[in-house]
């Protein structure tokens, strides 16, 4: 097996037994471990190799006899083997099997994730700094808008009524089939402050108050969007809308933003939703849909880039230009 792996490409260490293997793994932290599975006890051996120091991220390639039982293979995989080869095998087969994890390792390192050998490249929103720090991020921009600082604490405010006024803004990641929803929930004190300070009229109408809360949600969404952009993530912002607070707090990320002098409190809530993209005819395009890929003219000129949110204007224009036989992938309107 050692001879099958080119010395100028791989650093190979060969050991004769389990004890030496565990010691070598602990010392060298190899990326790939190739091991022969004994006639009995293969599953236990795998577990011990997997459990050894520096072994958690190693790719385990098991070499089995020519006709192993399906149950045995299943047990090996359950125990932590990533791939297996049957004896006898050609050198080139070992080389090919060892190459495979290399690409995965390079990818996982490039995205700074633990090596999980997961073929899915789905974004882990929870790993974004901008998402984890959403409360502070929003508080900063809203504070700028409001002319005052908010005191930010994690968690749902203690006295928020279930029927509090709520506005939310959807933010789409069409390529990842995810939608983030950022909501602001205002208690009575926050609403009074909003009327008096932002609108300049303590007797401002409910419609005006809702509009102002929607604009606060819009500002909050903008803060998240710009922060995510700095992390290389481009969100497509939707239009802020009135929402209900009855589903909160629930299993959502939330913060309390307290106004000065106990004047009131805004709750900031972040939700992550899976939204499957749809393939539709251009004739079915509608306002609010988000393109999952570029649209180009016949000459190759970019008409609308991927990630664009369609308005009625652009939806009608594309439908007329592309015709019903042109199919597109879109994230559905939020």
């Amino acid at each position: 097996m050692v001879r099958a792996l080119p010395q100028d490409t791989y650093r190979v260490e060969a050991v004769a037994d389990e004890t030496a293997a565990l010691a070598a793994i602990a010392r060298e932290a190899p990326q790939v471990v190739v091991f022969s599975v004994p006639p009995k006890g293969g599953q236990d051996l795998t577990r011990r190799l997997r459990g050894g120091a520096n072994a958690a991220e190693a790719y385990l390639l098991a070499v089995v006899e020519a006709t192993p039982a399906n149950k045995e293979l299943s047990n090996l995989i359950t125990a932590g083997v990533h791939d297996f080869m049957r004896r006898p095998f050609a050198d080139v087969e070992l080389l090919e099997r060892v190459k495979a994890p290399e690409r995965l390792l390079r990818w996982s390192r490039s995205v700074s994730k633990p090596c999980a050998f997961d073929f899915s490249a789905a974004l882990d929103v929870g790993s974004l700094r901008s998402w984890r720090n959403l409360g502070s991020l929003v508080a900063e921009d809203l504070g700028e808008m409001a002319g005052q600082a908010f005191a930010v604490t994690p968690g749902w405010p203690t006295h928020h009524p279930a029927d509090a006024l709520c506005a939310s803004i959807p933010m789409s990641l069409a390529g990842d089939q995810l939608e983030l929803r950022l909501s602001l929930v205002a208690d009575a004190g926050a609403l009074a402050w909003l009327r008096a300070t932002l609108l300049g009229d303590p007797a401002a109408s409910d419609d005006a108050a809702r509009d102002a809360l929607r604009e606060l949600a819009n500002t909050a969404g903008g803060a998240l969007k710009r922060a995510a952009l700095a992390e290389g993530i481009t969100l497509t912002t939707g239009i802020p809308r009135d929402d209900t607070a009855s589903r909160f707090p629930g299993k959502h990320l939330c913060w309390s933003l307290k106004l000065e002098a106990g004047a009131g409190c805004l709750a900031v809530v972040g939700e992550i939703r899976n939204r499957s993209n749809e393939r539709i005819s251009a004739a079915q395009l509608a306002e609010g849909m988000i393109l999952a890929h570029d649209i180009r003219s016949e000459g190759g000129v970019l008409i609308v880039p991927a990630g664009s949110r369609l308005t009625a204007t652009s939806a009608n224009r594309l439908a007329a230009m592309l015709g019903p036989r042109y199919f597109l992938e879109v994230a559905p309107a939020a």
Partner: protein
Amino acid sequence: MKSISPTGNPHFELMAHHLMNVAIELFAAYDLPIEHCPALEGKGLGPETYCMSSIGYVGRGVRGVLILAATRAAAEAWTSAAGGMDCDLVDAVGEFSNMLLGRLKGRLLREGIPISLATPMTVIGDGLRISVAPGASSWQLFEGPGWHLGTRLDAAFEPGFKPEQTQAAPAEAGDAILF
């Protein structure tokens, strides 16, 4: 561990690596799971090739072509996934190649390699062959449920090419920019 780079070009190897990932993701999104088959890689699909779609691309210091090759069974499966009777085979294959390069574009943008894409050109017929490209080029072959597909990425880099270091920072709240 030194990386294996058949072309000797780490930038090309990075592009090929991303291409493999986006191909798997794209077809999975249409319930057409595919598996990369490194053992089959060589000179494309061979005589089974029934359709090819090619799209040119150009970036700063790099240009090339992405070719998507498919067997007849693959093309028919994609046509069905793309809309059945309303979508013919040439359209479907072209569309998939467009979506494939579009996804690759997104990945490369994050790597500091922004590219612009041309429109796909698709041909169908028995025994299609394509000329060898200058510059870096490699095939990747995939196996789907009862069919095969291949992607060939060609890239010619200008001397001294390197990915862009950082993207321009986004504007901040309160910024006022006059052009």
